[in-house]
């Protein structure tokens, strides 16, 4: 495999690469891809300290509304802790591809819960099924406490059905808009009646609230359960097509290519095995075509994680990590609504572009982007500049440039753009980069990261 292809694969299956990690990879595509899947066989769940819940039961809360309120506040704070734990796991993953897939699925099966126990459980369910069987996955999602709360599944009872989950199940999770009728929604909602969960977040089926009557759904009639509904949906190739398109837009190119998506759907429809589908993509020649390399705009999390993969940073205040996510427009565990974040161009507006262009220099170089033409910034000036800026910076971070130097020791400074920037660079910008004095690898790295081109992967 060519270096550019390897970098491409590692941007899509992960969060970029560096000159050192690229050296250690095998030569053949088959082996590289095989390694990716092999190292994602296991799953490392997020596990934050939940001891604040020890000994607390539903009963103890019922009799003490004030305590219940305090607990809710505590839980909401814990969700922030979970956010940090997730970001850290993305930065240092044991199972790279699985983590990337988890991030993808979190914006597919979109859910949000202020109960940190349920939120963590939901997140780990995404992770456990991320490369598994889509059928089992959907069924598991339909039984998650967080989802039962988020889309009102637990209010869905025989006497008073709630259609919210049934609607989104088809519209967003499996088939896409316009592939079913309002009657299909009503009938399938009846099949999910009685779904509930206990205090710990485990699924509970309340038989008395379940509608045992006949339902007619997508042309079939029977006393269907919720699982039956999922099975019937998956009989429609449209489901395989819908998921393939979404995966294509995320992992290959935001511009859909009908031929490739159809081919993916053929693979996926056979047994809805996510791993097989991903393997098919990463082994396809078209995945590595020029038009797909550097074609997508990084999500804020891809941008942030990718950046600290190049130069590791230590945040002195963890809160800053949350602030940065907010400024960039994507706070993990806090999606805007059930449709999730819109991707690609939707990440960028006049506000976020400035934040993105400015962030690398703020985090890594005290907000300075060197102009480095001969004699510009001597060390004396740099010292003065830093002194003046001290305390004025919005974030307190410690960049680890030693690790950067080690990881990029195989990259010559004048070729650093080949490693840092993934897609084509604008001709004029390329001319400008030519004029820069490349005396310092660090400065050049910050300069490259402060370009619109760095937003692409």
């Amino acid at each position, binding site marked *: 495999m060519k270096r550019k292809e390897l970098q491409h694969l590692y941007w899509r299956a992960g969060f970029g690469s560096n000159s050192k990690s690229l050296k250690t990879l095998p030569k053949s595509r088959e082996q590289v891809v095989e390694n990716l899947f092999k190292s994602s066989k296991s799953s490392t769940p997020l596990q934050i300290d939940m001891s604040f819940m020890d000994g607390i039961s539903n009963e103890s809360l019922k009799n003490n*509304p*004030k305590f219940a*309120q305090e607990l809710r506040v505590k839980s909401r704070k814990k969700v922030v802790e979970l956010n940090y734990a997730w970001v850290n796991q993305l930065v240092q993953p044991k199972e790279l591809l699985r983590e990337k897939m988890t991030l993808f699925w979190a914006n597919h099966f979109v859910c*949000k819960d202020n109960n940190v126990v349920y939120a963590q459980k939901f997140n780990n369910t995404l992770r456990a099924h991320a490369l598994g069987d889509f059928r089992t996955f959907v069924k598991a999602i339909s039984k998650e406490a967080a989802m039962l709360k988020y889309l009102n599944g637990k209010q869905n009872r025989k006497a008073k059905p709630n259609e*919210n989950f049934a609607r989104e199940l088809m519209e967003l999770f499996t088939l896409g808009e316009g592939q079913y009728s309002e009657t299909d929604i009503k009938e399938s909602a009846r099949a999910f009646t009685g779904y509930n969960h206990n205090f710990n977040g485990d699924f509970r089926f309340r038989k008395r609230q379940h509608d045992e009557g006949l339902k007619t759904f997508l042309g079939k009639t029977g006393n269907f359960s919720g699982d039956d509904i999922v099975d019937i949906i998956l009989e429609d190739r449209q489901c395989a097509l819908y998921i393939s398109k979404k995966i294509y837009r995320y992992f290959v190119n*935001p511009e859909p290519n009908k031929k490739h998506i159809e081919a993916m759907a053929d693979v996926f429809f056979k047994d809805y095995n996510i791993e097989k589908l991903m393997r098919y993509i990463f082994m396809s020649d078209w995945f590595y075509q020029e038009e797909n390399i550097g*074609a*997508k*705009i990084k999500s804020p999390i891809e941008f942030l994680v990718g950046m600290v993969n190049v130069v590791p940073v230590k945040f002195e205040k963890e809160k800053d990590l949350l602030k940065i996510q*907010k*400024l960039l*427009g994507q706070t993990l565990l806090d999606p*805007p*609504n*059930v*449709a999730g974040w*819109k991707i*690609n*161009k939707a990440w*960028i*507006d*006049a*506000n976020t*572009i*400035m934040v993105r*262009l*400015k962030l690398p220099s703020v985090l890594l170089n005290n907000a300075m*982007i*060197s*102009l480095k*033409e001969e004699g*510009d910034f001597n060390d004396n*000036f740099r010292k003065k*500049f830093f002194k*003046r800026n001290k305390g004025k910076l919005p974030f307190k971070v410690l960049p680890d440039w030693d690790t950067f130097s080690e990881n990029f020791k195989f990259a010559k400074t004048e070729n650093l753009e080949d490693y840092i920037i993934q*897609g*084509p660079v*604008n*001709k*004029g*910008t390329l*001319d*400008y980069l030519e*004029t820069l004095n490349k005396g310092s690898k660090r400065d050049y790295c910050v*300069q490259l990261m*402060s*370009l*619109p*081109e760095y*937003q*692409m992967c």
Partner: protein
Amino acid sequence: MERRKFLKNSALASGLFFVPSFVKALESVATERLGYKRLVIIQLAGGNDGLNTIIPYNNDIYYNSRPRLAITKDIIKLNDNLGFHPSLAPLRSLFDKGELSVINNVGYPNPVRSHFRSMDIWQTASGSDEYLQSGWLGRYLDRHGKKPYNAIEMDEQLSLAMKGEHFNGIATSDYKVLYRSAKDPYFKNVINHYNDAHLSEHNLGYLYQTMIEAKSSANYIYDNTKVKLSQQEYPQNKFAKQLKNVAQFINSDLDTKVFYTSLGGFDTHANQNNKQSRLLSQYAESVSAFVKDLKRDKTFEDTLILTFSEFGRRLKQNAANGTDHGAANNVFVIGKNLKKAGFYNNLGSLNDLDDNGDLKYTIDFRSIYATILSQWMDVSAEDIIPAKQKLLDFI
């Protein structure tokens, strides 16, 4: 040497004065103005308790439902039934002059009691069963905006309300900081070298175009904002600072149609009275100063101020001397020449509550939006507010 000077010189030295014409075209200020009528939104985040804001002081149900929470002293009586919370005293003169309209029982069908969801509903103008990904002011920008600075939010992040399908407003809590980061000489050099006339046709072009627009918006705001100090005194708090900046922009005649401000902390589940009194004081004092500032510059007549909260609170107080999330609530409209000032409508019956014990809505908030769009902003509300709305006659 000063850093600024130093950088200027080094830019000179590199001889980079050539600015491609399309960059100029993008940076040039639109000669065609959007008109002078401006809208200022004030969002009271957390769910303001409307019943302790506009108080039904002659209603036994009110007092019985809130034995320890009902306001009993210093109510500013405005008619036989309703009065202001004492903290709203600074707004009394606006009310008396016919520059304030209080619209009661504003809400929507099947109200949602989650902050986030209900705020989304208000910001996107959706029904409670639909999820829209763009805000109502964003959709206004989609159709009638030309530059990001046509809508400014006085915050670091942009609210969903200000995000359109294709076009977003700009968010800045400090326009000088925005200007300073945008004018980094490195960015200037990159933009000046950029050559591709086919902006926005592909992702990279879109990134450059947005970068250029951000820079030009930052420049526009900075260059056109008059720095002369306002003679108006404002209270010392963050919210007042937001309004002060808005007044500065309006009085500098920026081509900005929509300003978005926010005051948070209204989620008063416990020990409500002190907290709400303090917040309402901040609100009323700041708004009063803001209106005076505008009047001084004669810009008040072209400004409409809309205050809302994502929901009201339950009539019955809770055990912690607070209130829980409710439904319908009041909305304030402030401006000159209101058609129907004072109380636009009566407060809904406290006898006829919904299943949760909350006020029922009689006016859909989307009809207020539609009225503002068509009667004030002078545009068709039809493709901005999704569901057809009956127009009201407060303006």
